[in-house]
Every structure is written in C-alpha cells, then in structure tokens.
C-alpha cells in the first residue's frame, strides 16, 4: 500500500511515476516527518520516488530505499527502537543486510531517525543517545565527506565540505572503542562534523556505512539542502545551499551505472 498523503503544494497523490530511471522507495512510518522532503529530493535528483508503507512487507521492486527523518512511534522507548520491528524492516534487513549475498545489495540511506532505525536493526554499527547538551538543536552544519565509494556519496569529491541542516535530540553517535577503531580503520566514516561538535558524537561521526558499503546512515539532513531558497545559508545567499542534492544524484547515477 502506498501512502495517499499528498506533498505540500502538490496534491497529486505522490511525485512518483513522473521520471524514468532509478525507483527509490521512501518509507513512511507513523510519526515520520521528512518523507515528503526525501521524495522531493529524489525527484530533484532525477529519480522516481516511490512511497513505501511501514506495515507493508513489500518493497515494490524499488532500486534503493530511504528511511527518512522524524519521530517514528513518537521515539517512544528509544528512537528507532519500535520502527525497527515494522514489517517493511524485515524485508529491508533481508535485502540489505549481511546475509544478502548478491553482488549488488540494496542501497539504503537512513537519515536522522532512519539512521537510528538502522543502528537498532544492526544494519549499521553503534547507536544514538541524547545530545550531550540534552537539547534539540536545529542549525546549518558543515560536514566532511570522507567516503565517496558508497552509492549515496559517489559524486562527492574526497574530503569535500558540504553544508546541510541538522536537527535532532538523540544525535550523539556512540559505539565501543573497539568498534570505533574498526570503523575508522576500514574507512567507514562517511560524514564527519566540521567545526564545533554539535552533539558529542564519538570522533565527530555524523554518518557511517556498513562493511559492504550499501547501507549508509547520516544524522543531518541532505534532503533539506536540495533547492535554492529553502536550504541552509551559503556564500551565495540566504538559504541557497544545495549541497545535499549530490546524495540523491549520486544514488540515481550509481543505479543507472549499475544497470548498464
């Protein structure tokens, strides 16, 4: 079942079936907030956004999946802890997890609450606790892209600095010293905070990937930096930042390349 909830400003059922090319699923859980934003970002990135529903096991043949931000199930118990048991997640774990032996496992991006779901589902290492200052924080955040080998980051240049909004309450990334060392050694830190550490994350980690590089989690929000006028500030003007768009063009072109 796909969600009937319309995009703001576009009361057509969904932006899907408009473009050819990569079909990218955006999952809506109860309490998901940034699903419309993620779908818009996919569309602007040249892909086709397909709405997926938490209660539906089927991924409807999509080529990649985004778990968007929000407060699934009110973040009750722990952020992502309940969403991790949704039917759609069972399929996602099978398609994207370590037991998937295909040469091209499903690319998955978890943003904010989606990242929290991916750690709860053990598709990604570590977990998220309350920010060290114990407050929700919304700000423009500079990140360094340190791993450009994933489908979601292929079009960035190595160590590129990007600005995207961050907004979270439970965004402090923690993991064991041993696992931390392993992640660092294997180059699995995908995004790192630059400047003041906004929430106390270990090694300023903002985003990581799994061993195979198909699953990426990221605390800040690239889908809020895809359209000039509505993103973070940048040198060219207020709210003009569109650095996040490269995440979505990356996956679309990676999938196109993969199919050729």
């Amino acid at each position, binding site marked *: 079942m796909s969600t*009937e*909830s319309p995009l703001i*400003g576009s009361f057509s059922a969904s932006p899907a079936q408009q473009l050819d090319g990569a079909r990218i699923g955006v999952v809506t859980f109860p309490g998901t907030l940034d699903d419309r934003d993620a779908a818009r970002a996919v569309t602007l990135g040249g892909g086709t956004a397909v709405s997926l529903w938490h209660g539906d096991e089927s991924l409807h043949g999509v080529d990649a999946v985004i778990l968007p931000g929000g407060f699934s199930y009110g973040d009750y118990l722990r952020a992502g802890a309940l969403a991790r048991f949704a039917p759609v997640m069972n399929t996602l774990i099978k398609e994207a997890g370590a037991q998937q032996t295909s040469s091209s496992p499903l690319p998955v991006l978890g943003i904010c609450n989606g990242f929290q779901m991916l750690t709860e589902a053990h598709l990604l290492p570590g977990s998220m606790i309350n920010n060290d*200052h114990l*407050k929700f924080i*919304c700000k423009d955040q500079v990140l360094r892209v340190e791993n450009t080998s994933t489908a979601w980051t292929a079009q960035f240049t190595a160590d590129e600095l990007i600005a995207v909004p961050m907004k979270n309450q439970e965004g402090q990334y923690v993991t064991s010293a041993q696992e931390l060392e392993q992640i660092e050694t294997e180059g699995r830190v995908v995004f790192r905070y630059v400047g003041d550490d906004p929430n106390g994350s270990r090694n300023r980690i903002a985003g990581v990937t799994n061993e195979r590089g198909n699953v990426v989690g990221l605390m800040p929000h690239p889908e809020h930096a895809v359209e000039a006028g509505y993103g973070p500030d940048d040198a060219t003007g207020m709210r003009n930042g569109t650095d996040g768009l490269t995440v979505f063009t990356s996956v679309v072109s990676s999938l196109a390349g993969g199919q050729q």
Partner: protein
Amino acid sequence: MTQNPAAQPGNGEPELTDEPQFSIDTVDDAAATPQTELPWAELGLKENEYTSIGEILGRRPTAAELAMYSVMWAEHCSYKSSKVHLRQFGDKVTDRMKQDLMVGIGENAGVTDLGDGWAVTFKIESHNSPSFVEPYQGAATGIGGIVRDIISMGARPVAVMDPLRFGDIDHADTHRVLPGVVSGIGGYGNSLGLPNIGGEVVFDSAYQGNPLVNALAVGVMRHEDLRLANASGVGNRVVLFGARTGGDGIGGASILSSESFDESKPSKRPAVQVGDPFAEKVLIESCLELFHNELVEGIQDLGAAGISCATSELASNGEGGMHVELTNVLLRDPTLTPGEILMSESQERMMAVVTPENAAAFEAVMSRWNVEYSWLGEVTDTERLVIDWDGETIVDVDPRTVAHDGPVYERPYQRPSAQDALQADSFRASAGGENLPATAEDLGAAVVELMSSPNMADKSWITNQFDRFVGGNTALSQPDDAGVIRVDEESGLGVGLSTDGNSRYTYLDPYAGAQLALAESYRNVATSGAVPMAVSDCLNFGSPEDPDVMWQFSEAVRGLSDACQQLEVPVTGGNVSLYNQTAGQPIPPTPIVAVMGRFDDVSRRTPSGFQRWADGQAIYLLGTTADELDGSEYARLRHHLGGTPPQVDLAAEKTLGEILINASRDGMIDSAHDLSQGGLAAALAEMSLRFGVGSRTSIDQVCERDGVDPFTALFSESQTRAVVALPRSEELRFTDMTTARGFPALRLGVVDAESGGIEVSGPFEGSSFGIGIDELKESWSSVIPSRFGAPQDPA
C-alpha cells in the same frame, strides 16, 4: 453495565474492567428532586448563571448538565466579558475586506482565499496559565490545541509561531518557566513536522507571575477541502477518535466526584493536560486522509471543555439535534464520572459526523493509522442534545443554550485615575532622560548596550531548539521580519506571517498600542514582500472584573478594530485571555496581533540582513523620525515607562507597505528591515549581525531634515519606517517610486562587506563611531546562553 454492540472501539476492547462507583443523576432525577443542591459555585458559576440554567431547562440541571454549562459558560469558552466589545471586529468589516474571506470569525479558524484554488487558515491562541503551572506540558499542549483548530477546518497545518512573554531574565522563576516552555514547544512542534517560523520573546518583570505563551498555527487547503464544524444530516453518525479520555485537564470538575460513593479513585488529577505529539501527528495524517477521501460531513476538535464543547457546538451549528451514548467513550481512567468525561480536556481527540455509508471507509482510515475511535451516537431532528449514560438520559438540553446563549456581561470600565499622570511622565523629563549620549563614544556604547539587553539580544538559543526546515517550504524564519512558507511548489504561491505586540505602548495608551501592534505586524509582513490580507489576534489582559483592566481591553479592541478597517485587513479569528493577574497585579495589556500576507512567488521574499555579496549597495531610510522615546527600548534600559507611545499613521503605513511590496516584486531591493523596538540603531545593527556584513552610514541628513538630535535619530521608535538596501543600478527607479508616492526616503550610506564593522557618522562630537560586528555579536549572542546554558556546552 451494557455496551452498545454497535459501538465497539476501533482497536481492542474498552478496558472498563472496574464498574464505576457513582450514582447517576438523570434528567428524571433532576425533575423529581428539585431541591437537591449542586456545587455550582465550586464549578465557577455565579448565582445568576445557575438560576438562568434552571430557567432555560425548566428544572434544576443534572450533575452532567451542570458540568457542561459550567465549562461552556466559563470566560474562555463563552467570551462573556469580551463579547460586547469583540462585536466591533465584525461590525467594522467592509465589503471590500470580505472579498477574500471564505470563513470569518466564529468558526475554529478563519479562512482566506489565497488564489489559484488555494485557501489559508491561521489562528493565534493563548496557553498562558497552564504554561505557568507546568511549563513543558502547558506550552506543548498549546501547540497541540491550535494545530487541531487548523485541521478541523480541513487544512494541512504547515507552520507554527510562538509569541512569548517572560518575567525578568534574571528572576529564578524565569529559569523554571523559560526552559520548560521552549522545550515544550520544540518537543511537541518538532514531532509534528511543523516548521517553527517565528514569534517573539520579551522579558519584562511585569510578566513575572503571568508569563504569556501564545501559539499560532497556519494551514493550507484546496477550496474544496474546506470543512466546518456542524452536525447535519439526520441519521448521520457521531464518532470520537484519537486519544482516550482521561482525567487530565478537568480542573473544577473534580468537585463533581463528591457524588462518588468510593473514595479510592485517583484524587490528584492534574489541571494541566498532558500532550502526546505522536498521537497528534497520526491524528493529523488520518484527518487529512479523511478529508481527501471526503469521508466526514462535519468535524470539530476537542479543546477547552472537551466533549461538552464538541457535542454542543456541532449540534447547535447543524440543523437538528444529536443523541450520544456516553458510555461508548473510550476511557483511560474507568472511574471517571459522566460529568468528568464531559469536561475532560484530554488532548489529541477529534469528533466527526459521518454518513452511515462512509462508516466502513472511516474505520479503514482509522485502522490504517492505528487511531482508536468509538461511535458515540447520531444526528437527530429533535433540536435537542441528548446524552445517555447506559441508556438513561443524563443530559437533555437545547445545544444552542450551552454553546452560544451563555451569559453576556457589560463589565464596568473606566479610565484608570493614574493614566493622566502616567502619560504626563515623559522619558525626556525623567531622570533617565538627562545626559543622554551625545558624543561618538557614548552613542556607540549605547548601541552596544541596547543590543546586549535581554529584549534585543540574539534569540537563537531558543529558536535553534525548533525545527525550521521540515517540509522544505520555509523561505524565511526567525530572525527575519516575517516567517514565509511556500504553498504551491510549482508557482511559488505562498504566505508571510508576523506576530507583534508591544505592551509598553499599550500600557501607555491601549487604543494606540493595539493599533501599533497591528501596524508593526502589517509592516513586517510588507517588509518581507507579502501583501497583508488578514489578521488574527490574541488579547491577553488582566481581570475583566477590574474596571481599569476592562478599560484597557475596550480601548484596545476599539483601536485594533478601527485600525483593521483603515488598513483593510479583517480579523478572521483569535482568542481572548483574561484573568492574567497574580496577587491583584494584572499584566500590562498585551494584544498580540498576527498578520498574514500573500506572495505570488515566495522566491521574491526580501530578507532582513545585508547580503554577503551586496558590497557597495545603497542603504535608504524610509519615513521620518520624530522625538518619540516614551515606551522605547532605550527608556527601558533606563527603567522608565511613561509618556505617550509613538504616533500612529495608518495611511502612511499603507503607502510604505506598497513601496516595500512593489520593490520586492520588481526585484529592486535585496534586503529590508522594519524599524520598531530600538529604532534605527537596532535596525542597522540587526541587518549587519544577520550575515556579518557591515555598513557605512550617516545620520546627518536625518537630523537636518527631521530636526532631531543624533541620539533621537538613532533611538527614537517613530513608526512607519524601514531600512532597505539596493543595488546602485536600482536607485533611480526606487527613488522615483518613493517620490511619486510622496513618501520620504533618504540615502544613509552603503553596505560594506569588507570592513566587518558598523560605522555611523553624524553631527555629534567625534563625528563618527564604529562598532566591530564580531565584538557586538559576542555580547549580543551571549545574553541568553549565559543565563540558560549554551546548547553547545554539556549541561
């Protein structure tokens, strides 16, 4: 107890395992026992009101009826003290003001036609007392309540704003209230996916015992999705959905539990409601799906007075009556009495009227979103609201007498005896008015002092706890003059909103102060480039039983309604909050005025700060400056409040608005900021602080043309002024426009992106002063974090 088999809950069985232990006071009992005393006084009713209920019913009310009348006839539901004055908002609406109005005052929120088939609904409300008692939940449920008002019109909520008033920034209680209010607004609003696009924060010891937490929500819809709160169509079914009903928010209703035989029930129920934003989020999505599929005939949110309000308003706005079986209400606390169930203000609930044909489809939407619901009854043709408890009638009333025919009072009012002395006490003649800064050094220091005062200081410690990005349609947000939201992604059609209110002005002159609140809000919206269309107001005052307060109220309403007529922007709804006083000390009169304006294309919006790429752009001051320091922020620094507020000139305000809107639409200007608190000094400082871009200006001509001294030029709060920055290539076109409209414009200087400083020259000793933006930013931005803890530092 029997359950109505037709009314099973949507998810799981009701958990009414304990048989309620109370006697039921039926309509028959009431007729048979006319002498039984009911606790009307404890429920807040006056003797004449209780008598009048008896006359309406022709018998004594039942306990449940008394509960309903007591909450619906309370000040905040019945507007009994304010109604006679509020009529002016309707009476002064001209046909021209009505042309874009789809729904006016009286519904859950007004609706304005935005064009292209779009409509916008917005409303501002207060949640003052709950936020003082329990800051987090009070502020959170304030957001929840106003958002449900917007949903019940058929709209998707798209943004919220919060005008806040706290006591002294260094008072211990402010440190209890502010962090709780801020995290409550964030905790609830962020979880709903609604960007917070603005508001205000004011510190003033006059609010020490009565902080104000107002909340605005705005929603958008297609014209055909408009829904109204009425129960029509005999045989249609009435359904309650969302959260279960509990004992929270009952307040005085616990008095009715004295009818209980059992003393073991939960005794200490909070008078403040507890919010669950997740429940609200799924309620929003499920309601929008109901609207999209055209499954409801009428809908009403449950806010103040809960089921009493929803049933009586739906029934009295419809054409017939309503019959409800109250035992079908899903409860969190099975010991609630019927009266308590009727009065409960449990959050995240809605009531709808659904045709029998649509019932199954309605249930499917509920189950898809895991929302609980129960069918309560049906619409009848009896013109009576009949409520049964387990088959026995406990309420049988004309719903209109509950919802609309409450008491109306003409409270006595009189101009306070001290008002003349207050107005005679001008700042110039006061001790603080002596030895005003006159040299370059003193003027520069005064600017820094002003910008480092709590009210002018950076508020991002607060606003950074709110999500301003979600939805991807926020084109402007705090600290810009207005919040701007795109409505239509293809055309860029959108809205700009601002909330304003200056209680210092209103205290000095309530009539002018209310007009100044509207003028500033109107000016802010126009400064951002939007065409002002409609107004919503939240009128925060002390006790209406105090003739001095009632005078402030009546003057403010008269002033605001006159000004709305002159600016041709109708009031579409709002809220009155009275009794904001502690220990006999009322708050200063605080009308907060929200103005909503329209953009053809929000990409044309004008930001307030000088842009980084705008080096060399010309800076102009629009409007003239008079010696108007009474009630100003500078006078506040010197602990003075007296005199008369700045002059109101609404015709000029309209012209200035047209200039700013045209300049935005034609792409002439790249930044614009209105002049209000702190005058020109604050405007220049804020425009530089926004992006760290400096300026070089001169006030020589201002002083010469307007006949004012340099201090006045910088700190006077004369109205109807704005500062704009524009490329030199646009200067001629721009000044041609201001000249053609006969509006004063002066070139002050240029944007200087390289200097990193704010340099002002003028006819004063030393001839110019400069303020480094970095140093100013340091003191400006540390005021609030230094008191409440920097978000970057571990607590």
